[in-house]
């Protein structure tokens, strides 16, 4: 039992923090927002120069086979810059194929995922129909689906690999509130689909990786909201004093920190629980996703409020955090849904 980063983990965390601070800058993110929501330059550097695209990919397929804890430190860093990159899809699809793909599927896709040559995403709908290897149906809210080359789609029990250029697949991308992660609608009409060897295993770990990614991004985002607001509080004066010297202001900052510290425990508890195969893992994932999303939303809202008028402008970055926080709350089930799952574990189904 030692609930602190190893030296290696601390190093990855620091590297990632520095990388995203330098690459996923506000101006790059805003360029991506004005286009297709994909900061290609950052993603390319991330996968290739930094070599972190293969974080969750086994070594034999070009990855570094690290654990969820390592991945969480990276997602946290990406979240702290609201980076417009398809990290969520990488985590979900990379771990899903690694866990549930055939050898052929693994060796075909995993190296390309690790290198960033292929961008992946996924989604599900219980009404998806499979008929003679052809998949039909509609899947909404596929994150970064607009720029993905590869999808894993699921009806909740089976999972299929679908390539973006397959016949019969159309990808529509409406404008989304959070422009750093567009959400596409896929319409499939008898689309060629390659079933994963072990769909259940793939879905299981893919979902876990997705939740960890969102929770860790939320943690990083919340911490960034607090850090940036603290900086502002020290510089900005009102009524002749730094606004950070006003007690009510201080107390709101303190309240942010209290939540964030818990969110931090949640993310790394859940990540450890997955890495160690703990029987707490499921509970930890629900706790992490719901708690961290709420913490981020609270902190981003407070960031706007504590900046006053400027926090409400397009020019200021506060809204990037605020909109990301909201979208994380809604992605992969709401907080209430996750808490109800926990309630069911504790209390059984409601009568």
């Amino acid at each position, binding site marked *: 039992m030692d609930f602190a980063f190893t030296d290696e983990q601390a190093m990855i965390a620091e590297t990632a923090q520095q990388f995203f601070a330098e690459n996923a800058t506000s101006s790059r993110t805003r360029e991506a927002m004005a286009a297709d929501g994909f900061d290609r330059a950052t993603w390319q550097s991330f996968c290739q120069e930094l070599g972190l695209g293969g974080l969750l990919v086994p070594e034999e397929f070009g990855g570094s086979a690290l654990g969820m804890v390592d991945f969480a430190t990276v997602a946290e860093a990406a979240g702290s810059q609201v980076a417009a990159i398809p990290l969520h899809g990488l985590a979900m699809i990379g771990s899903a194929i690694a866990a549930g793909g055939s050898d052929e599927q693994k060796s075909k896709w995993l190296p390309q995922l690790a290198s960033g040559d292929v961008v992946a995403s996924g989604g599900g709908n219980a009404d998806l129909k499979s008929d003679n290897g052809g998949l039909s149906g509609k899947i*909404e*809210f596929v994150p970064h689906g607009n720029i993905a080359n590869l999808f894993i789609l699921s009806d909740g029990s089976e999972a299929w690999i679908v390539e973006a250029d397959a016949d019969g697949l159309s990808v529509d991308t*409406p*404008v*989304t*509130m*959070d*422009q750093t992660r567009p*959400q596409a609608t896929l319409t499939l009409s008898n689309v060629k689909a390659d079933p994963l060897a072990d769909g259940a295993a793939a879905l299981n770990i893919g979902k876990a990786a997705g939740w960890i990614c969102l929770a860790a991004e939320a943690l990083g985002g919340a911490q960034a909201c607090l850090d940036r607001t603290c900086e502002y509080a020290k510089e900005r*004066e*009102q*009524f*002749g*004093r*730094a606004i950070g*010297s*006003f007690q*009510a*202001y201080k107390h709101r900052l303190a309240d942010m920190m209290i939540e964030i510290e818990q969110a931090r425990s949640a993310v790394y508890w859940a990540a450890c629980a997955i890495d160690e195969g703990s029987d707490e893992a499921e509970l930890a994932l629900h706790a992490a996703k719901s708690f961290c999303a709420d913490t981020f939303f609270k902190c981003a*809202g407070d960031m*706007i*409020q504590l900046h*006053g*008028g400027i*926090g*409400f*402008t*397009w*020019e200021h970055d*506060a*809204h990037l955090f*605020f*909109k990301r926080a*909201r*979208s994380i709350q*809604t*992605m992969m089930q*709401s907080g*209430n849904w996750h808490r109800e799952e926990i309630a069911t574990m504790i209390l059984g189904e409601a009568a």
Partner: protein
Amino acid sequence: MKLGFSKEDEDFRSECASWLNDQMSGEFSDIKGITTLTEKAERRKEWEQQLAAHKWSCIGWPEEWGGRGASLAQQVIFAEEYARAGVPGRVNHIGIELAGPTILTFGTDEQKKRFLPDIAAGKTIFCQGFSEPGAGSDLAAVRTKGHVENGEWVVNGQKIWTSLAHISDWIFVVTRTEEGTQGPKGLSFLMMPIDQEGIEIRGIEQINGDAEFNETFFTDAKCAEDSLIGAPGDGWKIAMGLLAFERGVSTLGQQMAFRNELDEIIAAAKSNGSSNDPLIRQRIAKAEIGLRLMRYGALRMLSNQDHSKVDGAALTYKIQWATWRRGLGELGMDVLGQGGEIAEGGEYAWNTLPNLFLYSRADTIYGGTNQIQRNLIAERGLGMPREPRGK
């Protein structure tokens, strides 16, 4: 204590409802249901004039200045029916509710003659220049400077959050006219024409993609010497008086707009089935309670004739509605679920509920942040010691 309206008042209600509905289904049907402040501004100026032509422009004002000298009950009724009929907000809200009453109270006869008829007639649109960058909620920190030169006021500086400045004719500005003064002293209250070289207006893009607010720059901007309201140095007193007008009958019209927003949430919940979720049901019930209590709080505040004591309902009103509405924005999104993330057109432009979610984050900031409101409540309402100013 009585909540019901008299027979005469109910007749008045029918009269204004019928006129407003005629307008909204007839000549002005093209502006019905607009909820933003900026859309179709020119048509809405015509609407101001239509209101004036039928004496509905400022019913609470004295008859001699274009009003009807309407009773409180009638003003309440008109505000309610106005919003109920789906009429969009007044682009001359600031002229009618703030500038007009300020001139009525503090202006000279000449100023009344010069401004009031045109405001009442919808010919002069006003906006408000209080906040400054760096001063935030602290009006006493105003740095925009004014001085008299060749029989004119000359103003230099910058205002921010000047809502609707880009469609307005006049702006009232609080300026520092006594050099070397600090805080509330040495401020003056000026009326300035906007269409002049010395005034430049730049829109501020907001988080919802709209640009309702502006920055307004004054570079040797000018106005006649008699555009000063009150005496030089009275600026603080007049600004405070004006802020009190902000809590007038128009709050009830604002509440009717809130009613429409809550009704849209209720309809969305019924339509997508989240109305069956006990957690959503509790929140909708709380929102309904909050809105009702806002209404009865406003009626208490408007009925209160005892001005010797602090009016708790009035003092707490701003933070109450702003916080309620911010919560409403979150409720709306939770009812919509993930679908609330999606804009329906191909642009970054939002339907009522997502827009409410984004826009309402400003409600707890402009016009005095929630923090400033709590200071005021504790100090003025509860007698707590003042916050020490720095330096």
